């Protein structure tokens, strides 16, 4: 945690020099072995890793690859390993980091190049496999009838779980997912818990069991809780995984 008030930082005389080391590798250039490259950047007030990396790309090395879209912790594309912990680069203030910052791409995903990984491909595969979308039994939806009402407390709970941005931090931090590539990960279990909570989804427990009732699903999770400890949205992953485990274990 940073306790220095912003004004104090502004009056500091010499700005800090940050050394940012990036694990560089481009799979489309297989002849070049992966290597570490260190850049120096001057820290400004409120510099995030997003700003620092852009500065490097603009002023020092245009070939550096990394992903950003929203720069506000919403799109989930900028997750990377920051000093040994998966986190969102756009939400990481450099003043919370030591002078030397080490960056690596998220493991467990297809590498596009340098810090850019294809989390989208992984997420899509997972979503199709365990069907993380709303399933409704009835075929026709009447456009004339009033919408069903939902209890505000329940809506709040569903909304809470809906906040997942599919950044992939939980998968990178999960020893199980790293050892077993077919494991759904906390993100998949969380998303199913969200639909299970939703009365508009007419799936039964047995339907959920069908997709996560084995060791590539909820019973593969070993409760290492890496996911819970790194999720940038602070989602209650341990609790939701335990909930799915209880529901799936008690099924007849």
């Amino acid at each position: 945690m940073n306790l220095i008030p912003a004004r104090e930082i502004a009056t500091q005389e010499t700005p800090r020099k940050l050394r940012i080391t990036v694990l560089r590798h481009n799979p489309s250039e297989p002849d070049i072995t992966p290597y570490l490259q260190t850049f120096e950047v001057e820290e400004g007030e409120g510099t995030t890793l997003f700003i620092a990396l852009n500065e490097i790309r603009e002023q020092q090395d245009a070939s550096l690859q990394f992903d950003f879209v929203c720069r506000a912790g919403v799109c989930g594309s900028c997750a990377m390993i920051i000093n040994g912990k998966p986190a969102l680069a756009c939400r990481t203030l450099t003043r919370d980091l030591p002078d030397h910052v080490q960056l690596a791409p998220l493991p467990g995903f297809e590498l596009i190049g340098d810090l850019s990984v294809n989390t989208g491909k992984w997420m899509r595969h997972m979503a199709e496999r365990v069907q993380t979308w709303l399933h409704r039994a009835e075929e026709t939806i009447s456009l004339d009838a009033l919408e069903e009402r939902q209890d505000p407390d329940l809506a709040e709970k569903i909304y809470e779980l809906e906040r997942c941005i599919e950044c992939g931090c939980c998968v990178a931090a999960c020893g199980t997912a790293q050892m077993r590539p077919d494991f759904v990960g906390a993100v998949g279990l969380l998303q199913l818990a969200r639909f299970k909570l939703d009365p508009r989804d007419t799936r039964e427990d047995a339907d959920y069991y069908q997709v996560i009732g084995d060791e590539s699903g909820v019973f593969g999770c070993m409760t290492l809780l890496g996911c819970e400890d790194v999720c940038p949205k602070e989602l209650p992953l341990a609790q939701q995984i335990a909930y799915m485990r209880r529901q799936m274990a008690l099924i007849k």
Partner: protein
Amino acid sequence: MVAPISRWPARLDVIQGVTGLLLVLFMWAHMGFVSSILLGKDAMYFVARMFEGEPIFGKPYPFLVSIVAAVVFILFAVHALLALRKFPSSFSQYRALSQHLGWFRHPDTLLWVLQVITGFALFFLASVHLYQMAFHPSDIGPYASSDRVWTGRMWPLYLVMLFAVELHGGIGFYRLLLKWGVFLGDNPKRNRRRLQKIKWGITIFFIVLGLTTLGAYMKIGIEHADRAGERYVPAAKLGGE
């Protein structure tokens, strides 16, 4: 409704947890009984005869101890068999795990690794001990046990096993509660920290108790070394004869 797939993954998960829980509870109770030596030789003598059913049947039946040992052994074997599913089992899994541990310093993941290592050690350590209890059930008593610990050179095994069991069982207990969502309540992060403190408290308590107890048996064993094999006669019986 879709055709149900096998319910066995669910059952196996429950069985692993239940056997683990029973083993932890047994180990904690067991430590309580064994440490009766700290209250004196007569206390331990009484506990040992109690497990042989003397207070109920009027005379000791050591085969009751064999039965307990056999039941524990079955629990232990089932638990270990199921735990095997969780061990990294191929080169690629070991490599993935070691790379993961290489960059990710995460306390709970390290606890799990410690659990796997201590669990593996228990395969061997606990088997030796359970075999002995099952087939020499009558050799439990203030002198018989102390002679085994010292003259029989079992103390190094017990010393290593104490740490392995307490660490493994303590971590297992903690993870078991989290795994099934017991104790998380409405503030999972705070309650998890509390649970961690409780867990370490229990583990440290049992390790200290275990070391003290082992020390007591070793001391009696050393003093009794020249008369090793001779059985203890309780003060009450001596007085009565």
